[in-house]
């Protein structure tokens, strides 16, 4: 604050005897109280102020009579004034106050910044990977565009239920991922889905999803895996529990090459229509394993617990498929194919599906809110869900499959020799792959791909006993 010349101090003090005189009278307590409570008229107030400007005793009486609560209105100012009240030289006082105030503000600002950054990291741990992933994904878009690329609504990516390792483009066929540079929705789906892969989600999918239907070369895939692992490590450094679950899951499932091989087969089925399948997928899975193994040091406690479970042989199969505790119960539930209007619900996730206006919608909260999960070129007519396996069928042989609860979708084209499914899919039935099981009555463990049965508008029955890899027509 600007200092007044010291002569002002002296003259303020010196004018008192001249103005007030030796026989000065003071305003009584009534007037002073009314003045302090702003209850005086303008004339009275000016008169009291005139006296107060000259009378230190009345100023002190008013100051002492202030209610305690009012004095503590601005603690900062009080503190400053307390410092100022000590007899310090003006220059030193200014420097002292500045030195006292600014570091506090600076550290407070720094602390606030750290808190904001930490909260952002905790809220969106995968955001750090976005730029890298986008740049990594760009080259993928150079492959030939497909004949019909499905539109996956960006809003179909529920943040809460995204599996950790299901996001990579491996589960999306080349037709939907690499169709064209303008197909930003697919990329955005993958990118935004990756933002969730580092969450400590008990619903994490195993590593097998990483390799499903990826039409890239093994070396490229391995490079991506390395980048992914690096990003996860970075995320793990930034937020302790942010990246580790997925890394842990990947490390846990990496040795299970059987799973990887199975998913390669599924992707091969999908790629049979779009891109020629190849043994690259297998190589890709093998090549990716070391890269993911690099994330092992960042294993969190859940991953370690899973490892222990595996070592102990307790619920081995369930743990290998889904780390979630509710998963075995969910797996016991038999999905049933339904036409558009009925609503199916998974007990494990409380995820509800419905088709409205040819669009598959998903509700993560038992129907309280809905999000568009899948929008295809042709209107969708029916769907079936079994745990996180979701199938959706529509007009003109439209068939989509999601193995991660609707986060990513793969267009499946059932075909037998030269004949493809082209009629409307009106009914889908998904059955667990347990010998002797009956539709809607699956109990116990479910292993391997489910049996898919499609009914079409022209009375055809298409079925697949290997999760859609190969089809039979009845």
């Amino acid at each position, binding site marked *: *604050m*600007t200092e*007044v*010349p*010291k*002569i*002002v*101090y*002296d*003259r*303020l*003090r*010196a*004018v008192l005897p001249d103005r*007030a*005189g030796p026989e*000065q*009278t*003071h*305003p*009584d*307590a*009534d007037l*002073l*109280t*009314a*003045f*302090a*409570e702003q*209850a*005086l*008229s303008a004339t*009275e107030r*000016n*008169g*009291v*102020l*005139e006296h*107060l*400007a*000259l009378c*230190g*005793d009345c*100023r*002190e*009486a*008013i100051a*002492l*009579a*202030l*209610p*305690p609560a*009012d*004095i503590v*209105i*601005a603690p900062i*100012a*009080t503190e400053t*004034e307390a410092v100022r*009240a000590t007899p310090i030289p003006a220059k030193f006082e200014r420097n002292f106050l500045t030195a006292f105030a600014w570091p506090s503000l600076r550290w407070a600002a720094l602390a606030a910044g750290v808190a904001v950054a930490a909260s952002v990291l905790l809220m969106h741990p995968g955001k750090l990977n976005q730029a890298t992933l986008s740049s990594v994904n760009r080259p993928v878009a150079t492959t030939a565009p497909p004949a019909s690329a499905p539109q996956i609504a960006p809003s179909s990516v529920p943040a809460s239920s995204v599996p950790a390792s299901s996001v990579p483009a491996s589960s999306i066929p080349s037709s939907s991922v690499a169709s064209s540079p303008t197909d930003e929705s697919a990329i955005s789906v993958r990118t935004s889905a990756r933002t969730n892969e580092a969450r400590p989600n008990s619903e994490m999918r195993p590593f097998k999803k990483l390799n499903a239907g990826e039409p890239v070369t093994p070396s490229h895939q391995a490079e991506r895996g390395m980048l992914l692992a690096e990003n996860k490590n970075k995320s793990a450094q930034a937020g302790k529990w942010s990246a580790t679950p997925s890394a842990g899951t990947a490390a846990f499932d990496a040795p299970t090459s059987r799973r990887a091989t199975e998913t390669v087969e599924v992707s091969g089925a999908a790629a049979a229509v779009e891109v020629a399948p190849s043994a690259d997928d297998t190589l890709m899975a093998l090549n990716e394993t070391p890269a993911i193994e690099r994330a092992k040091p960042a294993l969190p406690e859940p991953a370690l617990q899973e490892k222990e479970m595996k070592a102990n042989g307790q619920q081995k199969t369930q743990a290998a498929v889904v780390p979630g505790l509710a998963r075995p119960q969910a797996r016991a539930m038999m999905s049933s194919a339904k036409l558009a209007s009925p609503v199916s619900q998974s007990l494990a996730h409380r995820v509800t599906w419905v088709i409205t206006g040819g669009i598959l919608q998903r509700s993560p909260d038992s129907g309280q809110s809905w999000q568009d999960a899948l929008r295809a070129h042709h209107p969708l007519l029916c769907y079936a869900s079994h745990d996180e396996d979701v199938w959706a069928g529509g007009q003109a042989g439209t068939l989509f499959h999601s193995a991660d609860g609707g986060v990513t979708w793969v267009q499946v084209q059932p075909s037998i020799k030269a004949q493809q499914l082209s009629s409307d899919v009106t009914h889908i039935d998904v059955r667990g792959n347990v010998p002797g099981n009956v539709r809607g009555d699956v109990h116990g463990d479910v292993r391997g791909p489910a049996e898919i049965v499609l009914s079409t508008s022209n009375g055809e029955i298409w079925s697949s006993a290997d999760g859609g890899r190969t089809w039979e027509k009845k």
Partner: protein
Amino acid sequence: MPKSAQSGHQANVAALYERSGAAAYGVSVEQFAAILDEILRKYFTQNSAHDPDPNSARASAEQKADFCAGLRLEELALARACAAGNERAWQDFIARYRQKLHGMALHITRDGAHAAELADSLFADLYGVNTRDGIRRSKLVFYTGRGSLEGWLRTVMAQEFINRYRKQKRTVSLEEQTEAGVQFAAAVQEPAYTSDRTSDQRLEAATDEALAELLSEDRFTLASYYLDGRTLAEIARTLGLHESSVSRRLDRLATGLRKRILAGLRMQGMSHAQATEALETDVRDIGLNLRSRLTQDSGAKTFPEGKVPAQDAGKGINE
């Protein structure tokens, strides 16, 4: 007073009496009207500074009605009933303010023993143990309801503290202070106040002129901040402003005062360099001399016991 005006006044008094709840304390309408008349006489004396428009009788009547309506009637009735010795009024007063009095005293004195003594002393004054001409006279008769009764009690207590304890503090013996661990430093021999007398007079004249041009509120702000060391919050609370407004005002005043003083010095024939030098030189000298100038040492009581007549207070304010 015309009959219509008189009936209007009576109706107004009756309404105010109803509002005050004075009947519960045994105060009659006539007594209440007398109290109001006394207060009106105090604040609406002819040529009094408190009379907004003393030359207009009609305006004055309206303003008196507004003035009475703005009084703290309920607390006024309570205080006056206590002063009259009404038992129920004292019960209410004790229930409302007895505990607060101790809190106020502790806030003012910052010392438990002194707080209890101050509060008890004030309570005795309020009850009226002091007799004048054999009549018990309570201090509460001086309450006029302009502000809150609680605020009035705080102010009275603060004045009592200033009169009594602040001066007693200076009379503590050296032996007591030594026992209390107070270290006495050798008296600092202040250098002789040597300055160019002509320059000093011109500087004082310019400063006085600059200060005289200020509003009374600005002078109060300057004195409170620079002389009394009050905080911005305290000044803001006293003036009913925001703290930042006081801060900005102080900045503006300091800058403006410096400019005006320099301008005044130049008007008296100084060059800009000379005026600046005189101002800076005086800063050093006055800074050393200020300590003694700021020290108050008066043997007389600052606030007289009892009340100050309204007209006297008005004169003091006007003069």
